[in-house]
C-alpha cells in the first residue's frame, strides 16, 4: 500500500520551472511523541496553484510551517528557488485563517507593515503608493485609512491578502485563509483569490479541509492521510481557467470531488 501511494503521488507533471522542492520531509514532535509528517515529496511549479487537503490534525499546518521556515523538519530537505529554507524568508508570503490585522494601524498601515519591519519607516512610507494599488486590486478603494474594527471579516481578509503581496513574494502559502468567513463570502473571496493569482502569475500552496474549495481553485490537489501525514494521491484538476462558481454544478467537478472524498474516507475513521 505504501508503494502504490508513493507512485500515485508521481503524476505531478505540470509544466513550469519548479519553485518549491520538498524531498522526504518528515516531522516528529519528540516531546509530545507525535509523528506528524512522513516522507513528504512535493514540487510546486512556477505559476501553479496546488492544494493540500486533509482532515483536521493530519499535519497539513505543520507542513506549511516547515515550508515557511517557521519549524525545522526532522528529516528531509526543503528548497525554495534553489536555496534551502533554513528559517523565515522574505520571498514567502503567508496567510492564516484569521486576518490578524493590528487594530492600532489603519488598513494601509497594516498593508505596509512587512516593508516597515524589513526596511524601516521611510521605506514603508514610500510603499504607500504600491499599497494603494493593491487595496484597489482587491476592491478596497476608499478604505485605506479605516481601522480594522470598521472592516467586515471579508474585507479584513482582503487587507491581509494585500499585506501578503506587498513584499512581492515568490510563493504564497495559504492556511485555510477563508474558512472563518461565511460560505457566500468565502465563495466570492475564492474567486477573487483566483483573479489575483492569475493576474500576478503567482505560485500558490493552499491548505484546506474543503474539497470544493480545493477543486475549484487548484491545478493539482494532494490528498493527505491521517497522522502521520503523507500524500495518498495527487489529483490533477483539468477544469478550464478561469474557473467560475457555476462549474461547481458541472458533472466533472462532481467526479473530481467524489474521487478526492473517496481517498479521504479511506483513512478517516481508523
Amino acid at each position: 500500500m505504501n508503494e502504490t501511494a508513493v507512485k500515485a503521488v508521481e503524476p505531478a507533471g505540470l509544466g513550469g520551472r519548479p519553485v518549491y522542492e520538498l524531498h522526504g520531509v518528515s516531522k516528529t514532535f519528540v516531546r509530545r511523541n507525535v509523528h506528524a509528517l512522513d516522507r513528504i515529496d512535493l514540487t510546486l511549479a512556477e505559476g501553479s496553484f496546488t492544494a493540500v487537503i486533509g482532515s483536521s490534525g493530519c499535519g497539513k499546518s505543520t507542513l506549511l510551517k516547515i515550508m515557511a521556515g517557521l519549524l525545522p523538519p526532522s528529516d528531509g530537505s526543503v528548497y525554495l528557488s534553489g536555496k534551502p529554507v533554513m528559517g523565515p524568508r522574505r520571498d514567502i508570503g503567508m496567510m492564516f485563517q484569521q486576518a490578524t490585522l493590528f487594530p492600532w494601524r489603519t488598513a494601509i498601515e497594516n498593508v505596509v507593515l512587512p516593508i516597515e519591519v524589513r526596511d524601516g519607516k521611510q521605506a514603508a512610507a514610500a510603499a504607500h503608493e504600491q499599497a494603494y494599488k493593491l487595496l484597489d486590486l482587491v476592491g478596497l478603494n476608499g478604505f485605506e485609512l479605516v481601522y480594522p474594527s470598521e472592516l467586515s471579516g471579508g474585507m479584513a481578509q482582503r487587507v491581509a491578502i494585500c499585506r501578503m503581496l506587498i513584499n512581492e513574494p515568490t510563493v504564497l502559502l495559504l492556511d485555510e485563509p477563508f474558512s472563518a468567513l461565511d460560505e457566500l463570502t468565502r465563495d466570492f473571496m475564492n474567486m477573487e483569490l483566483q483573479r489575483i493569482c492569475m493576474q500576478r502569475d503567482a505560485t500558490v500552496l493552499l491548505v484546506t479541509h474543503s474539497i470544493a474549495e480545493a477543486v475549484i481553485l487548484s491545478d493539482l490537489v494532494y490528498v493527505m492521510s491521517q497522522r502521520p501525514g503523507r500524500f495518498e494521491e495527487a489529483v490533477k484538476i483539468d477544469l478550464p481557467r478561469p474557473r467560475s462558481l457555476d462549474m461547481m454544478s458541472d458533472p466533472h467537478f462532481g467526479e473530481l470531488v467524489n474521487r478526492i472524498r473517496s481517498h479521504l474516507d479511506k483513512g478517516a475513521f481508523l
Partner: protein
Amino acid sequence: MSHPDAMTDSDAAPTTVWREEVSLIDRVPRSVAMILLLIGFLLVWQAAYSFELISKIIMPSPWETAVDIAFVGQNLLTGGYMLGALWTTTLEVVEGFLIAVLIGFLFGLLVGETAFGERAVMPYLVAINAMPKVAFAPLFVSWLGFGIASKVALAAFIAVFPVIVGTAAGLHAADENARMLFRTMGSSRWQTLVKLKLPIGMPHFFSGLKNATVLVVVGAVVGEFLGGGKGFGELIRVAASQLNTPRVFCLIIYLSFLGLGLYWIVTVIQHRFVFWHRETVLQGEIGA
C-alpha cells in the same frame, strides 16, 4: 400584491407585536438613581446618629461632617496649613507612582519577555507579593528616615506589583498567529517587542496602572500613619487621636480625590494611546 386591508380579515392572524418588560428599578435614570442612593445613605446615617446606635462622641452627624468639609475646603483654598499637608501627600503619591511604573515596567519586561525572568524571577515576585507589604513600613522608616522618602518607598513598593503583572500579561497577549506573522516577516526580537507585543499589551498595562493608582495612595497614607511626617495621613492620625471624627471623615473624602485624580489622568492617557481597544472605547462612552 395583497392589500393592507387583508390583515383585518377575520381569517388573518392577529399581529404579535409585544413589548419586552423592563422592571421599574432598571428604568430609573442614572443620575436620579445615584442621588436617591446618596439620600438613602445620609438618612440611615442620620438615623444611626439620632437614635444613638453609636456613641455621639465617636460618630458625627452628616451635618457636622458637611460643615467640616466646608471648613477644610476653605482652608485648602485659602492656602492654609492643610494645603501644605495635601501637597506633601500628593508629592509622595506622584513620586511613588512614577517609581512604581518605571520599576514595574522593567520587571514586567524581564518576566514577560525572557524565559529567565519567567522561570527564575517570577516565583520570587509571587512570594514577595504574598507578603503583607504594609508590614515593611517600619523597615523603610529605619532605612530612609521620617521624611518623605520612606513614604514614597512604601507607596512604590505596594503599587509596583500590579504594574509588573499588567506589563507581563500584556507581553503575552499576542496570539500565536500574530507571532507567526511577525516571524514570517523576518522580524527581529526587538521589532516584535516594539511593533507587536507592547502595543497589543497596552490594555493590560493600563489596567495594571489603574490598580496602582489606588494602591499608591494606600501606601503613602499608611507610610504617614507609621512614619509620621507632614502629610494628610498625619492629619488623619492626629484628628482620630483627638476623637475629631468629622475631621477624619472629611480628610478621607479629600484624600479620595487625590486617588481619583490620578486615576483620571491615567484614563485620559489610556484613551490617547489605546483608542483602538474596544473596552477602552466603550468605557469612554460611559464615562462621557
